[in-house]
């Protein structure tokens, strides 16, 4: 215990310089003692750094290149959105971070995932178990199926606290009560003894968030956290997550298909298509000035509440490609109205078009010119 506490002190000094925000956390029980010690001599800039990650599924129909060489970073305390349609690899990419890909059929075949400077792909199973839920927590899409139906809400919260932080049962109970209050659950004492089926969808998602927060992680991955919820409840949950991550200085990766949710909450956005990140940038910049035809198409195809009604929507024609049969060209080419010959043979790399704004398109410059003409 003494050695871990020492490393914790070292870590706290380093991290408080990095984030500053972690100072606010209440360390009443001193249970952050087991926080991940930093390797010596590593200077941490990004909290999470993903480099050329490749995850494939080996099925009877062929090899599915679900995630095909994505790279991005998450800074401490920031909210990064991963946007894309079903099957674009956004969830698989997130599950890969925590190595929750079912193997077989899936496998991470290449790349690096550096969390606080340490490559998670080199970590042992035991080390990964310690990281999951303590340093990186996850909020899943379906609050109906991701809670254990035969355990009480209280037990599901205290289990994590006892396992990761070595808390005693009464301490864990007290902390669970506090957490439920923090996520806005009324009458938390009674809720602790209830089972998931007693709770509504919104309440269950609040419990999921409490579970994610219970070890004060540095990073929360939220995979479509509000897709299964009604709009008024969605607004409640998103406000709660925004408020808590800001207050506790937790970094957040939000995976979603809802462009409105991204606009309201994300600092930076990664747009994915067919297993690749095709555009990245500051949220405002991406919406104002999209530099990839797919992002432009997505933004145009949603009916907007704030603009006058259009006669016709402007959809992206065609279907997303079959991920088992990708050729060397740009996967968006068959649906793209800006495509040129080069798109068929060479996949464009994600390159800076304007400061921190990246696009993987040969026509990124033509796009802005056409846009100006169109508007």
């Amino acid at each position, binding site marked *: 215990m003494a050695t871990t506490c020492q490393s914790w002190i070292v870590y706290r000094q380093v991290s408080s310089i990095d984030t500053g925000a972690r100072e606010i956390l209440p360390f009443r029980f001193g249970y952050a003692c087991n926080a991940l010690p930093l390797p010596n001599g590593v200077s941490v800039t990004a909290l999470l750094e993903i480099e050329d990650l490749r995850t494939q599924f080996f099925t009877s129909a062929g090899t599915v290149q679900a995630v095909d060489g994505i790279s991005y970073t998450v800074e401490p305390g920031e909210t990064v959105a991963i946007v894309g349609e079903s099957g674009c690899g956004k969830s698989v990419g997130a599950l890969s971070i925590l190595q929750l890909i079912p193997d077989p059929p899936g496998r991470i075949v290449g790349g690096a995932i550096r969390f606080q400077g340490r490559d998670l792909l080199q970590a042992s199973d035991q080390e990964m178990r310690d990281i999951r839920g303590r340093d990186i927590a996850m909020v899943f899409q379906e609050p109906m199926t991701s809670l254990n139906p035969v355990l009480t809400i209280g037990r599901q919260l205290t289990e994590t606290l006892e396992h990761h932080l070595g808390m005693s049962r009464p301490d864990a109970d007290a902390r669970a009560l506090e957490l439920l209050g923090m996520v806005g659950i009324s009458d938390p004492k009674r809720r602790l003894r209830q089972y998931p089926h007693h709770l509504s969808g919104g309440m269950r998602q609040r419990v999921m968030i409490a579970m994610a927060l219970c070890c004060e992680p540095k990073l929360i991955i939220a995979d479509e956290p509000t897709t299964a919820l009604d*709009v008024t409840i969605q*607004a409640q949950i998103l406000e709660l997550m925004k408020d808590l991550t800001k207050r506790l200085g937790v970094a957040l990766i939000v995976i979603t298909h809802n462009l409105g949710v991204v*606009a309201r909450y994300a600092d930076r956005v990664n747009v994915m298509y067919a297993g690749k990140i095709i555009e990245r940038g500051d949220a405002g910049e991406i*919406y104002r000035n999209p530099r990839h035809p797919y992002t432009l198409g997505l*933004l145009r*195809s949603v009916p907007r*509440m704030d603009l006058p*009604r259009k006669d016709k929507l402007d959809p*992206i024609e065609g*279907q997303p490609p079959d991920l088992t049969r990708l050729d060397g060209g740009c996967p968006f080419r068959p649906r793209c109205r800006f495509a040129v010959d080069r798109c068929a043979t060479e996949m464009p790399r994600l390159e800076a078009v304007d400061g921190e704004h990246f696009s993987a398109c040969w026509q990124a410059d033509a796009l802005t010119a056409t846009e100006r003409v169109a508007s």
Partner: protein
Amino acid sequence: MSVAAPAEAQVSAAPLLQVRNLKKHFPITEGILIQKAVAHVKAVDGVSFDIRRGETLGLVGESGCGKTTTGRCILQLDRPTEGEIVFDGINLNDLDSRALSPLRQRIQVIFQDPYSSLNPRMKIGDIIAEPIYVHGLEPDAQKRMDRVRELLAVCGLNPKMADRYPHEMSGGQRQRVGIARALSLNPDFIICDEAVSALDVSIQAQVINLLEELREKFDLTYLFIAHDLSVVRHLCHRVAVMYLGRMVELADCDELFDNPQHPYTQALLSAIPVPDPDIERAREHRVLKGEVPSPINPPSGCVFNPRCPLAVEGCRSDIPELREVKPGHWVACTEV
């Protein structure tokens, strides 16, 4: 507690469908051998509206507000507990299943989930041809298949897909098959029950455009049930908002979105994020507190009163009736 029929004052052409004081209560039973009802889920509790020929009425609300049950009652898939459903002058509730059959040809439905609403063991062609066969409209198998190919082409699919199975198709393609099946009997009226909710944005826009094209081409009337208000705003002429089995607001589409009156409608509109960070971060968000109460034991008075920012004492005891605050704009709230 009968709700005033809102559309009566504003009907110009004769309505195709009139729904009057529709109620559907599902019993909750107890006991193994002798079942007795101990309570009722009031899924729909006194809803009235008209749909004019050629118009699209949007029916919006959150899960459990009774919008799907309203659609199922119109289709007579669930027999209403009370109220009238008059389609083209005929009260559907009075008819037995044999007498309903010819009317069923004229009222069709497109379901939400393109994965579970197609029989996985039937070919696409057979799925679309089945209604034609069941209603005996085209006894000749060859001519039936010609019609199927025509329908597939109308819905933007390759006619060769008639020989495929549902699992070979994507979600968007399956939803087009669902639309082709609904069109196979040349209906007048189609109920779209969350018809585009399960689709990705780029595909959703394609299907919305298809629905609009078909409306013009075949003079269709739609009841468009959805929870996505931005889609409803794009597609509908008039919009009705439901909450916990009651209708809280009914108005022309532009009027409802520009000038919402009921506090629930206002909160619902405020909760929808706009895909533009500049606007989204600048505008005010009115987040509703609490959750939708249970329809088994709804709050007394106005069902919205526990979550309502405007609620006064009277809201707990008196049920507000729909009243016309402007021509064609009906609101069930005493405080607006």
